[in-house]
């Protein structure tokens, strides 16, 4: 069954009247013309508003605290945190050693602590071993260093295939791994959270930590991508 058949099942289903909101849960592109994004107020929007109004009137939630939670993950906590860690590990061998030996404590020293990152492990990808992180059962992800996970990480195509066909998943991301490279997939079934330390790209000798951090993509820290080559990176402001 293709993803599209999957969506077509919704047609005529009264519980799924609004496709605008549902489209994001699936793996097709956001420009799918059958899923308008300008629907006035979806069932889900009304339902969540109704829930918030009920809980607010009961005094159980403070809407200002919700704003603060959302703002934290929209503007302050994201993959830039992890990129700093990776760049530091590339330039400071003693730091890298500590990071690999005790990731939780080393990350805490940098202030990257808290929810969904209490017990961390850092996995070093090398020339011969490639690490890939997944959560087949839900969406476990190291929030303090990567922020909230992207939709694809939480969706069925990735969660189903990462363990049975990791090399195929990597090809979906444009990564062709040579047969002689060993792939280790880490399924986050417990409360350990994994961050991949990608390989430092060639031609980056002499670059500063800030410049190197620009090369570290979110996907490289999940294991579905590689760090960018320097010429492919955006220019760093002087």
């Amino acid at each position, binding site marked *: 069954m293709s993803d599209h058949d999957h969506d077509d099942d919704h047609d005529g289903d009264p519980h799924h009247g609004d496709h605008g909101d549902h489209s994001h849960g699936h793996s097709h592109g956001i420009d799918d013309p059958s899923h308008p994004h300008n629907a006035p107020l979806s069932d889900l929007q009304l339902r969540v508003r109704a829930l918030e109004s*009920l809980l607010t009137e009961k005094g159980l939630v403070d809407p200002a605290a*919700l704003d603060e939670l959302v703002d934290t993950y929209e503007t302050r906590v994201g993959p830039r945190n992890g990129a700093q860690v990776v760049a530091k590990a590339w330039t400071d061998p003693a730091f890298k050693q500590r990071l690999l030996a005790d990731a939780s404590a080393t990350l805490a020293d940098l202030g990257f602590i808290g929810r969904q990152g209490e*017990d961390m492990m850092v996995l070093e990808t090398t020339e011969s071993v490639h690490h890939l992180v997944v959560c087949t059962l839900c969406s476990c992800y190291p929030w303090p260093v990567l922020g909230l996970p992207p939709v694809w990480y939480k969706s069925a195509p990735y969660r189903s295939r990462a363990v049975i066909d990791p090399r195929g998943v990597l090809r979906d991301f444009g990564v062709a791994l040579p047969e002689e490279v*060993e*792939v280790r997939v880490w399924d986050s079934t417990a409360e350990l959270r994994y961050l991949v330390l990608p390989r430092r790209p060639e031609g980056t000798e002499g670059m500063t930590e800030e410049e190197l951090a620009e090369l570290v993509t979110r996907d490289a820290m999940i294991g579905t991508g590689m760090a960018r080559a320097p010429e492919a990176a955006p220019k760093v402001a002087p």
Partner: protein
Amino acid sequence: MNGAHDLGGMHGFGPVVAEPDEPVFHTEWERRAFGLTLAMGAWRRWNLDMSRSAREQMLPAEYLATSYYEHWLFGLERLLVEKGFVSPEELARVSRGEQTPREPAEVSAKVKEGALRPEGVLPLLHNRRAARLGDPVPPKFEVGQVVLAKNMHPLGHTRIPRYVRGRRGVVAIDHGVFIFPDTHAASENTKPQHVYSVRFAAQELWGPEASARDSVYVDLWDDYLEVAP
């Protein structure tokens, strides 16, 4: 439970398609559903394992047809009723999208003692209250030992994925003592025990067609493992 959430190894979902420059949230309702889930979690009337267990109660067909934050919303609504925060009648009104009329008082004046306030958000997110426990429980297995993931099918919440059950692996890392999710999802019984990263060869899981080099590391608790015969 053998639910639709246990996706590892399934076929037919198509390629992984990443959205370029994806925003953190796609819609306003996602923002609010995320915020409501964390804010209501701060009342500590349920734990993370109970939250996961609640989301797993969604009918399989619904689970596969809905997005991530819809799973969260489903789980939250279920727990709100279960713990008596919201009545079934109130939830039915929410499902119909009916707004609760606003009383004239200022919102901030209504907020009860114990509810999450904006200044409580950072301490909440930074708390070190982890699933790791200090209990001096001895490990049942040691690093390097060959183990068998039990062939078990509990009706309740569990974190042993179907694709490893009955398969042989090698203990790669002993992570120490943690809360056991199977009991913790049903009560506050933490049943402290060791968690290990167990390495399963790809061929052990998927047969001789799989790569002879590759492997999957799965974090498993003492109660999920037995000595390999």
